[in-house]
C-alpha cells in the first residue's frame, strides 16, 4: 500500500467533509468501493500521526482536518451500525421456549428433557428478506442457557472496529461510545417490543385482575429468558467484538450504555409483581416467577459481570428476595384467612364445606411446589400458645413433630386451623347430631385428600394422619351417642316390670308408651337423617352398619320379649309398626342426602 502524503491526505479528508459539499453527503464511504475505504483510512492515519504545532495556522488546519475526519468516521460508524441493526428475530425464539421446561403444569407434556441430546438446528430466515437481517443460528436449547447470536456480520464488525480504533486513538472515545450506545439502544428496544415486554407501571399492575396478570407473568418469564440469555448476551458479545483490546473496559462501557435501561425496565415488571397486594390466589404464579428469576440469576451474573453493572445484579437479587418475601407473606395471609374465614352459613346435610375443599386443593398445590417452598419457608408457624387461653386461636404443640420441615409444619398447622374453624362453624347447626356428621365428613375428606397425594402424604406424615383418622372415628361415635342413645333408651328393660304383691309382670301401658315413643323417635330420625349426606360411600356404609349393629339386635330382642304383651291387647298395629327387617331397610335411607318419600315402609 502506498503511503499517502500529508497534502493528499488532507485533500481526501476535506473531500469527504459532509458539512462542505452535497456530494460528500450523498454517499457513504463504507458502502462504496473497498479501495475508497482503504484510501480514506490511510488518509486518516496519516494526518493523525503527523506532529503538529497547534498554535500555527497550518497546525490548526491539520487539527481541523482531524475533527472533520472524526466527524465523518462517526457518521460512517453510525451508518454501518444502523444498516445492520435490526431487531432480533424473537418470534422463533419465543416459540421454542414453550418447549423448554416450564414449571406450570400445562407445559409438562411438552417439556424437553434437559439431558436430551438433540442436534442443534439451524433456523434459516426466509429468503428474500433484506440481506441486512442478521442470520441467527438458534437451537432448541436456546433459552435454557446463554446462547449468543451474531448480531452483525463479520465484515461489518471489521469496519466498525477499524473506525473505533482510529477514533479512540484520536481521543474521540466519548463520541464513539455515544454513537454506539444510541444506535444499539434503539435496536434493543425494538427487540423488547418484539418480545412482547410491556411497559406497565406498578399502578397498572395493581389494578389488573389477577387472571390477566398471570398471563403476563407467563409471557414475561419466556421473554426474560430470551432477553438475558440471548439478547443481552449477544449485545455483550458484539461490544467485545468491536471494542476488545482498544482500551480499558470500553466494551463494558458500551455494553452498559446499551442495556442498562432495558435491563431495569425488564426487572421493573417482576418488581411490580413482588409488591402487589398479598392474596392467597397469587401464591403459585409468584412462585413460578421466583423460580424463573432464580434460574436466571447465574446467567444474569455472567452477562452483567462488569463492575459498572453491579446495580443491575443487586436489583435482580433484591427482586428475588422480594418475591420470596411475598410468597411467605401470602402463605401467612392464607393461614390467616383459613383461621378467620367468617361465614356462618351451615352446609345443608352436613356435607363437605367449601372451605375444606379450597384449603385441601390449596395445600395440594403447595405440595407440588414443595421444592421451592422448602427453601423459602424457614420458620415454624406461629401458633397459639398452649397456655394462652386465647379462644380465637387453636394451640398446637410441635414437640412431637420435631423432624418435620417448616413447610410440613405449616401444612399441618393449616389443617389444624381448618378443623378449628370448622368446629366453630359446626356450632351453627341447630341439630346436635349433624354437628358430628359434619365434622366426620370434613375430617375424612382431609384424610382422603392427604392420602391421595404422595407429596402431601409424605409431608403430613402417618402420625398425624392417624390422629385425624382417630378423630373421624371419634366423631362417628359421638354422633351415635347423640342420636341413638335416647332411641335405644326406649328399648331398655328397666321400668317395664312391675313388681307388686299380686302380679309381677309387664306394665302394658308403659310398654305401649315405649313402642310409641320408639316409633316416633325413629321416624323422626329417619326422616331427618335421610337428608343428611355422607359423600364418601364407604364411610356412609360403615356408619350405617354400625347403627344397624346396635339397633337391630336391641329391637329384635325387645320385640321378642314383649310382642306378646302388645299383641294380646287392642290395636297392636298402633304399637308394633316395624319388624327388624323394616328397620334394616330404613337405615339404608340414612345419609343419602335426599328426603324419603312419604310412603315409608311399614307393615
Amino acid at each position, binding site marked *: 500500500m502506498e503511503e499517502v502524503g500529508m497534502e493528499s491526505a488532507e485533500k481526501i479528508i476535506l473531500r469527504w467533509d459532509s458539512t462542505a459539499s452535497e456530494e460528500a*453527503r450523498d454517499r457513504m464511504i463504507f458502502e462504496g468501493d473497498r479501495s475508497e475505504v482503504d484510501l480514506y483510512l490511510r488518509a486518516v492515519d496519516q494526518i493523525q500521526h503527523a506532529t503538529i504545532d497547534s498554535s500555527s495556522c497550518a497546525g490548526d488546519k491539520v487539527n481541523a482536518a482531524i475533527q472533520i475526519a472524526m466527524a465523518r468516521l462517526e457518521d460512517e460508524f453510525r451508518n454501518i451500525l444502523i444498516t445492520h441493526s435490526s431487531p432480533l428475530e424473537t418470534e422463533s425464539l419465543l416459540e421454542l421456549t414453550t418447549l423448554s421446561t416450564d414449571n406450570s403444569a400445562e407445559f409438562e407434556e411438552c417439556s424437553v428433557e434437559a439431558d436430551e441430546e438433540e442436534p442443534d438446528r439451524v433456523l434459516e430466515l426466509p429468503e428474500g428478506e433484506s440481506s441486512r437481517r442478521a442470520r441467527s443460528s438458534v437451537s432448541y436449547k436456546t433459552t435454557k442457557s446463554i446462547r449468543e447470536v451474531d448480531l452483525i456480520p463479520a465484515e461489518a464488525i471489521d469496519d466498525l472496529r477499524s473506525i473505533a480504533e482510529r477514533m479512540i486513538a484520536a481521543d474521540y472515545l466519548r463520541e464513539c461510545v455515544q454513537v454506539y450506545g444510541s444506535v444499539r439502544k434503539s435496536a434493543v428496544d425494538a427487540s423488547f417490543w418484539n418480545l412482547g415486554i410491556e411497559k406497565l407501571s406498578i399502578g397498572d399492575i395493581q389494578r389488573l385482575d389477577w387472571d390477566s396478570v398471570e398471563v403476563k407473568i407467563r409471557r414475561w418469564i419466556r421473554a426474560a429468558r430470551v432477553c438475558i440469555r440471548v439478547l443481552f448476551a449477544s449485545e455483550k458479545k458484539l461490544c467485545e467484538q468491536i471494542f476488545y483490546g482498544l482500551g480499558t473496559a470500553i466494551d463494558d462501557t458500551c455494553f452498559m450504555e446499551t442495556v442498562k435501561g432495558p435491563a431495569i425496565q425488564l426487572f421493573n415488571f417482576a418488581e411490580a409483581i413482588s409488591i402487589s397486594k398479598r392474596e392467597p390466589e397469587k401464591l403459585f404464579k409468584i412462585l413460578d416467577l421466583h423460580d424463573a428469576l432464580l434460574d436466571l440469576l447465574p446467567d444474569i451474573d455472567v452477562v452483567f459481570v462488569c463492575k459498572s453493572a453491579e446495580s443491575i445484579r443487586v436489583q435482580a437479587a433484591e427482586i428475588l428476595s422480594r418475591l420470596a418475601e411475598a410468597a411467605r407473606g401470602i402463605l401467612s395471609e392464607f393461614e390467616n384467612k383459613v383461621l378467620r374465614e367468617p361465614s356462618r352459613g351451615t352446609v345443608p346435610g352436613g356435607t363437605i364445606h367449601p372451605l375444606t375443599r379450597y384449603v385441601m386443593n390449596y395445600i395440594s398445590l403447595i405440595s407440588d411446589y414443595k421444592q421451592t417452598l422448602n427453601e423459602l419457608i424457614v420458620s415454624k408457624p406461629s401458633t397459639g400458645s398452649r397456655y394462652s387461653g386465647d379462644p380465637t386461636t387453636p394451640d398446637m404443640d410441635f414437640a412431637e413433630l420435631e423432624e418435620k420441615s417448616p413447610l410440613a409444619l405449616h401444612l399441618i398447622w393449616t389443617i389444624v386451623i381448618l378443623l378449628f374453624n370448622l368446629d366453630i362453624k359446626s356450632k351453627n347447626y341447630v341439630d346436635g347430631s349433624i354437628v358430628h356428621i359434619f365434622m366426620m365428613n370434613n375430617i375424612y375428606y382431609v384424610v382422603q385428600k392427604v392420602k391421595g397425594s404422595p407429596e402431601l402424604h409424605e409431608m403430613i406424615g402417618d402420625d398425624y394422619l392417624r390422629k385425624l383418622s382417630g378423630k373421624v372415628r371419634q366423631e362417628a361415635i359421638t354422633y351415635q351417642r347423640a342420636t341413638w342413645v335416647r332411641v335405644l333408651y326406649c328399648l331398655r328393660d328397666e321400668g317395664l316390670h312391675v313388681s307388686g304383691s299380686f302380679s309381677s309382670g309387664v306394665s302394658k301401658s308403659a310398654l305401649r308408651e315405649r313402642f310409641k315413643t320408639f316409633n316416633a323417635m325413629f321416624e323422626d330420625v329417619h326422616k331427618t337423617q335421610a337428608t343428611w349426606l355422607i359423600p364418601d360411600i364407604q364411610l356412609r356404609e360403615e356408619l350405617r352398619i354400625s347403627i344397624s349393629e346396635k339397633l337391630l339386635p336391641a329391637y329384635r330382642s325387645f320385640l321378642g320379649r314383649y310382642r306378646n304383651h302388645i299383641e294380646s291387647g287392642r290395636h297392636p298395629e298402633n304399637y308394633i309398626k316395624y319388624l327388624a327387617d323394616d328397620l334394616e331397610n330404613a337405615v339404608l335411607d340414612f345419609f343419602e342426602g335426599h328426603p324419603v318419600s312419604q310412603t315409608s315402609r311399614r307393615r
Partner: protein
Amino acid sequence: MPATEYQGSFLGRISIRRNQVSSLENNQEQELEDLELFQRHISDRFADLIVPAPDDPPASPHHHHHQPNPDNVLSISWLRKLLDAFLCCEAEFKAVLIMGRDPAHVAKPPLDRLIPELMDRVVRALDLCNAITHGVDSVMQCQRLAEIAASALERRPFGEGQVKRAKRALTTLLSLMDDKENTNSSFKAAERNWSFGRRGSGAAGANKDPHMANFRCLTMSVSKNWSASKQIQAMMGNLAAPRGNEASGLAVPVYIMSSVIVFAMWALVAAIPCHERSGLSTHFPVPRQLSWAQSMIGLQERIAEDWKKKEKKGSAGLMEEMQKMEKLGTALVDFADGFQFPAEAEKEEVAAGQVCELVEVCRRLDEGLLPLQQQIREVFHRMVRSRTEILELLDQASKAAANPVA
C-alpha cells in the same frame, strides 16, 4: 446530621413511653405530644432546605456572585438533601402510625378512607421514582455530551477542530434538552446532528428510513399513556387538610406525610426530565396557615415560579446544573458559530470562562448523579416496606372487625 439526632431521641422516647403501662388519659396525652413533635420535626427539616435565592441581595458585600452556592434549590445536592429529609420524615411517620398501634384504630373513620388513599399515592410515587431514575439516566447522557465539549475546549488557544468538535456535541446536547418529551430518543436527537440530509438519495437512503421510524417511538421506558404530571395531579386530588375533630387525631400525620410525598415527587419531577411533564400543576393544595407547612410552601412557591419562567415545552428540567448546562451550551454554540482561527482574545476569554463553568457543572453531575439514583432507589425501598407494613395493619384491622371472637 441534625435530623438523625432528632430521629434517634424521638423514636427512643416513643418506644419507651408506649411500653409503659399508663392510663388511657396518659396515652392520649402522650399521643398528642408525639403528633406535636412530628409536626415540629417536619417543619424543621423543611426549614433546613430553604436556601437564599441566588438573586437575593448578598448578605455581605464580600459575597461572591460568581461562586455559585452548590446547595441552591433544585441543585443536585439540594435534591439529595430533600431525599434525605424525606427518608427521615418517612421513618418518623412509620413510628407514629404503626409502632404499638392497635389495628382497630386504623380501621375507624376517617383513617379507613385516608390510609388507602395514602397507599394509592405511594404506588404512584413508586412509579414516579422509576421514571425519575430513568430521567437521571438521560441527564447522565447530557453530562457525557457536555464533557465532550468541555474536554474539546480544554486546550488554548482554541483551534477550529476543537471548536467544531465542541459545537457538534453541544448541538446534540441542546436538541436532546429541547426534546424531553421523548426522554430517551437520543437516537432522534443524534439524527438531527447528522451531516446528512434525509433526502433519501439512492437506495441506501430510502431503506434507512423505515428502520429509524421504528426505532424512534420505541425508546421510551413507559407506555405512551403514562404521564408524570398526571400522576402528580392524581396524588394531589383528595389531599385535604383534616378539619374539625379530625384535626387532632392520626388523620393529621397521614395528611402531613401525604403532603410530604407529593411535594418531594413534585419537586423531583420539576427538576429532572421524565416522561410527560407538561402541564405539571404549579398549585399546591396545602393551605398556608398550617404551621408545619410554612417552609415547604415557601419552597414550593419558589420552584413553581421557576417552572413558570423557565419551562418551555420540553425543556431540560429545572435542575440547576441542567439549567446552567443549557445556558452555557447555548452561549458556547454561539461562540462556535462566530469562530474563526485565531479567535478574538476577549471572546476567547469569555468562552474559556464558560468552559470552566461547564467543567464544574459536569464535575458536580459526575459526583452527584449516581448517588442520587441510589437515594431514589432507597426511597423506593422504604416506601415499599412501609406500604407492606401498613397493608398488613389494615388487614389485621379488617379481620378483627369482621370476626369478633366466636
